[in-house]
Each structure stands twice: as structure tokens, then as C-alpha cells.
């Protein structure tokens, strides 16, 4: 993984950000995809290949864990590390929104 990777830098991609948000409750792959599509009103959609690879990587990094696993479905849940990473990125994004809101108001 390169040094610019979201996992190394902590600057999460939108996909990782929403996957972690959706795993504040235990969910399996397709339910995560549905949750993200519904919550973002279709603005962010994650394909199955991306979802599978990202879940595998998050699991390997210890940001999420399998809580139920059988042959056809694995249910994941966020870990304490995952929550920390999510919260860090939330704060980073909140700063962007705050700056943008302030500047846009000035322009308006």
C-alpha cells in the first residue's frame, strides 16, 4: 500500500467513510450498500467489487470485525480503532464544511 493510502494517512475516501458509518450497526455487504445509497439519496453508490475489497482491507487493518460469519454472509461491525478513525475523519470534514460555509456566506 502506497504512502498516500487512505489507511496510512487517515484521510478516508468517501467509500470508507460511509462504510464505517454504516457499520456503527452490524450489517452485511448488501445491507451496507443499500444503507449508503439510501442515506446519500443515491449520491454515493458502492459497487460489489469495491465493497468486498474495502471490507477485506478494513477487516485486515482491524477497523472492522466479523461478528457473524457463514458460507454466504459475513456480518461486520466497527471496532474501537475504526470508530477513532471515523471520528478523526469526521472532524477533518467538519472543518472543511465550516470553512466553506463561512466563505460562501461572505460571497453571497
Amino acid at each position, binding site marked *: *500500500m*502506497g504512502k498516500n*493510502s*487512505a489507511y496510512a494517512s487517515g484521510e478516508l*475516501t468517501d*467509500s*470508507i467513510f460511509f462504510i464505517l458509518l454504516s457499520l456503527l450497526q452490524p450489517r452485511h*455487504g*448488501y445491507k451496507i*450498500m443499500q444503507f449508503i445509497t439510501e442515506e446519500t439519496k443515491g449520491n454515493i*453508490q*458502492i*459497487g*460489489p*467489487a*469495491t*465493497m*468486498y*475489497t*474495502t471490507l477485506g*482491507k478494513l477487516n485486515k487493518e482491524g477497523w472492522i470485525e466479523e461478528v457473524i460469519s457463514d*458460507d*454466504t*454472509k*459475513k456480518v461486520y461491525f466497527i471496532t474501537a480503532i475504526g470508530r477513532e478513525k471515523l471520528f478523526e475523519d469526521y472532524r477533518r470534514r467538519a472543518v472543511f464544511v465550516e470553512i466553506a460555509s463561512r466563505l460562501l456566506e461572505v460571497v453571497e
Partner: protein
Amino acid sequence: MMKYKYRMGSGLAFTPEKDMKMLEAMGKRGYVLEKLTGMGFIYRFKKSDPEDKIYTWSAEKTLTQDYLAFFMESGWHPVIAFDGVQIFKANPETVNAHTDCTSITISLEEQIKIYSKYTMYTGLVLFVLLLLSTPLFYFRWLGLLTMFLGISAFIVCFFPLLGFIYRKWKMSK
């Protein structure tokens, strides 16, 4: 009208998008992908009603029911499903299977790791065969056969490796 048509792929490891476009075009002309032959380099199409489908591919090393369920629940149906190579098709409005560059990079890195190992093993076998070429070619056909198998195995591993490295390099630019 021919029942089957065959097309050479441009190399799934190098330009999978090009191959997928070809599969889509063939489907619209009424030839639907049925299987991969020729050590995975040749597509076989069966005559059928024209269909408007999109295709995607993946290279999951160990195919599981969990993996297939991800695709099927998202509207992607497996056409080719082996360990290492999978091709899926879906209706045109279906969300793309790959929606994030990071995950494609992770997948490519895994492929590079796997194929580096295969290339090293087959390279080693080929090297040993070359060392043994004099006694092997004493029996002419045995020599030719073992060399053919050794070189083929090496090519099948080495060229995909080059493809994955090339794609990762292209993505990093």
C-alpha cells in the same frame, strides 16, 4: 448462421475494459459469452437473441459464495466464475462493480503479489529445465514437450504480472 463464435481477448490483466466492451458489443449482435477457452485467452460466444448487457470482471483468488452473493445482490450475474478469474454481466443501469480507485489499487497489489510468486516458481522450473536440456533433448520429443510446457507456464504467469504492474503504474499517474 454459426452456432459459436470465438474471439481472442486483448488480455484481462492489461486492458480488461477493452475486453468488456467487446463482450457487450458481441451480446448486442446476438452472440452471448459462454466460456473462456485456450488457457483463458479466447472467449467462446453462443448464438442467442441480441441482449443489451454490460460486463465487468474481477480476479478474486479464492471464489466464495459470500463473494458471489455481493455481486448477485447488486444485479451482477456470474458468467465465468473460477478462482482467479470472474466475469459478470448486468443490466445497463446497474451500479458499476468498481466504484473506487483505492479498492482497484488494493486488488491490483494482491494480483501482483500472487503472480510474482507464480512467475518466480515457473521461472525456477524453466531454469532447471534449461539446465537439464541436454539430457532431456537426448529424447527429442520429451525435450520438446517439457520445454513447451515450461515456457507456456512461465508466459501464462509472467504476462499477466506485467499487465497488473502496468495498470497499477497507469493508475498512479
